[in-house]
């Protein structure tokens, strides 16, 4: 297979409606750039993120998945991100255990005021995943068009 000249990873960012989605909006309002490969899916709370969604994203061709939610203690629903934190910690640990690159998944707490942090996080994450290259270990070849 030919190595593409410039690899542009597909990144799915799940953002909670109350903090991180607003934080993403804020980085837009402040015109803070981050790569277009990042696509945001709005969920009500970080605790809505089902591990199924993450695996689904990888299956369908994502190279990295990131979850952003309110900082612990600031959850709009008081406790949601605490549950999300445990779920994601365990899931990521399991993926790592299966030998799947641990840098492909990440959780970051971004408040509605942290537009700059959102952009910086996305830049950093895209850079990390770009270095890793294409997701090969959790891919579903049928879903890859090329």
């Amino acid at each position, binding site marked *: 297979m030919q190595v593409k000249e410039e690899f542009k990873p*597909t990144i*799915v960012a799940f953002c909670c*409606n109350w903090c991180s*989605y*607003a934080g*993403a*909006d*804020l*980085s*837009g*309002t402040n*015109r*803070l*750039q*981050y790569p*277009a490969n990042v*696509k*945001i*899916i*709005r*969920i*009500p*709370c970080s*605790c*809505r*993120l*089902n*591990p*199924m*969604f993450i695996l*689904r*994203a990888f299956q*369908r*061709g*994502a190279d990295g998945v990131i979850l952003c939610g309110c900082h612990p203690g600031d959850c*709009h*629903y*008081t*406790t*949601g991100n605490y*549950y999300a934190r445990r*779920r994601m910690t365990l899931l990521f640990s399991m993926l790592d255990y299966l030998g799947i690159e641990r840098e492909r998944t990440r959780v970051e707490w971004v408040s509605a005021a942290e537009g700059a942090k959102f*952009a910086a996080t996305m830049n950093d994450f895209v850079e990390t995943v770009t270095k890793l290259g294409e997701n090969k270990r959790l891919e579903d070849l049928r*879903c890859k*068009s090329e």
Partner: protein
Amino acid sequence: MQKIGVFVCWCGSNIAATVDVQAVSDALAKEPGVVFSTNYQYMCSQAGQDMIQEKIREFGLTGVVVCSCSPRMHETTFRKTCEKAGLNPYMVEIANIREQCSWIHKDKETGTEKAIILGRAAIAKVQLNAPLTAGQSPVVKRALVIGGGIAGIQTALDIADAGFPVDIVETKPTIGGKMTQIDKTFPTLDCAACILTPKMVDAAQNENINILSYSEVEAVKGFVGNFSVTIRRKARFVDETKCTGCGLCTEKCPQKKVPNEFNLGLDNRRAIYIPFAQAVPKVATIDPNYCTMLKTGKCGVCSKVCTAGAIDYQQKDELIEREYGAIVAATGFNPISMDKFDEFAYSQSPDVVTSLEFERLMNAAGPTGGTLLRPSDGTHPHTLVFVQCVGSRCDGGEKGKPYCSKICCMYTAKHAMLTREKYPDTDVYVFYIDVRTPGKNFDEFYRRAVEEYGVHYIKGMVGKVVPENGKLKVQASDLLGGQQLHIDADMVVLAAAIEPDKSARPLATMLTASMDTNDFFTEAHPKLRPVESPTAGVFLSGACQGPKDIPETVAQAGAAASKVIGLLVKDHLTCNPCVASSNEMMCNGCSACEKVCPYGAITYIDKDFRGPNRTTLRRRVAQVNPAVCQGCGACTVACPSGAMDLKGFSNAQIMAEVDAICK
């Protein structure tokens, strides 16, 4: 198949400068289900909205995707637009191509490509949207106020004035709370009783207010608009409807040695008592721990002297159950115990008192009739030492509280000033760490104490108090003077930290309201929703939410009342339709969802299902109360079988978005 219309907004040049809107609307037109696709300069303008409505009618659209600014901006706008055209408002999805696309990218090709993908994701989601109808739940037009101090009284009065019935539940025999024990109020020095007791009378006479004194909340069920509360009316052994409050029984009762809690044990009362002259309701109460008749069956003096025949030794606790639309917590505060601070010799000398005890010693209705006398020997004190921050601002060990109790600086200045004013022959020292006086006329008040009344304010702290030969030898640091001071004082007054009333924590559990580590109730938002608990329908009034002085308490009480009124004027509450729901065919009944629900919205029932061969299978299944559910989705992930799903953000919808983005 849905019939979807796509509307791409230019937002002037905000979007159109970096996104080729024509290319986007052309590309999205080819998506499955899309029957109409266009772009327009300002979709949120009246003309833009009119166009959407027109196209809904023209094409019989069943779903609308607007590619525009953030849904946080105009989702509601477009939902309303569509609703007016007869489309269910929840059939609208927004693709955020401004904040999350045009504004963060410079290259038009990139921006256009991304906008198309975001549009596809929204289309994929809307394919799976279902019309949602916001449910409604009725509102019981009655409020419950728990706690009858100034906070509870003010809240009740304001709610009652708006025409709604209110019950006040107060655990003591009278309402009035801590303020009844206070002598004068800072910074105006008006008498607390003079401003409080008229309000107590107002509350008693207001026909919308029902005072349940000597009562406690036993259980709370239900949810916003529909609480059901069990209240224990403790037996006071006096028929409230018959007692005239003449007080004869309280004079004749032979049991005279009962520590008087109203005066903080500084004097005694009888076993049958009325806490103080202006008590509301002015009804006697028998203290079962001391009454000889109740303990041994011999006595009956009060019954003999009562001309109204109100004494009833057989009275039992009574449980009543009532419905309320809203509940206000106003459980107030108490000074902390001084047990852990005996370096100040509180337990060793009666002349070391807390500030609240000092209030009683200065109060005309107090044990000394308002003359300041030493509790030990009844003599006039000449040297008084006030110690601030006793138990406040500690580092969170078992001793003391980590927070500032807020009111101590001001009441200490008040005490010092009043002492100097009444008794110019006294020397008054105040040991402080910081003097905190943020409030209207507060710092002026403190300065007056220093400048006009000659109170010695010393930055430093008392390290030891030694009672000896009728004096209190105070050893303290004077940090600015650079010396250790040794003062022979006659009285030492401790500004004890305040803490939430002990009843607050069990109450919070009953209300499923959250608390901080110090047992203060938590606000729904510390800045923007300071009088609401995160639990819908529960409101906070007064010091149960945090240390507060009287004006702040009254202000918050009024704010809580206005929130309650805002709730009670509604006949029905509209619920957020994006709530969880359980498919009972798949539900295991395992309680996983219930455990992670922050709102207690999930309950279980045993239900019979048809099994094979005409058998019946009984299964435990979850039920979501849509009026209580706030739609966070925690339960959906906790559920292993996938029985629990979230409307508006269903598993299928989110996965469709994932698919569209990763394609």
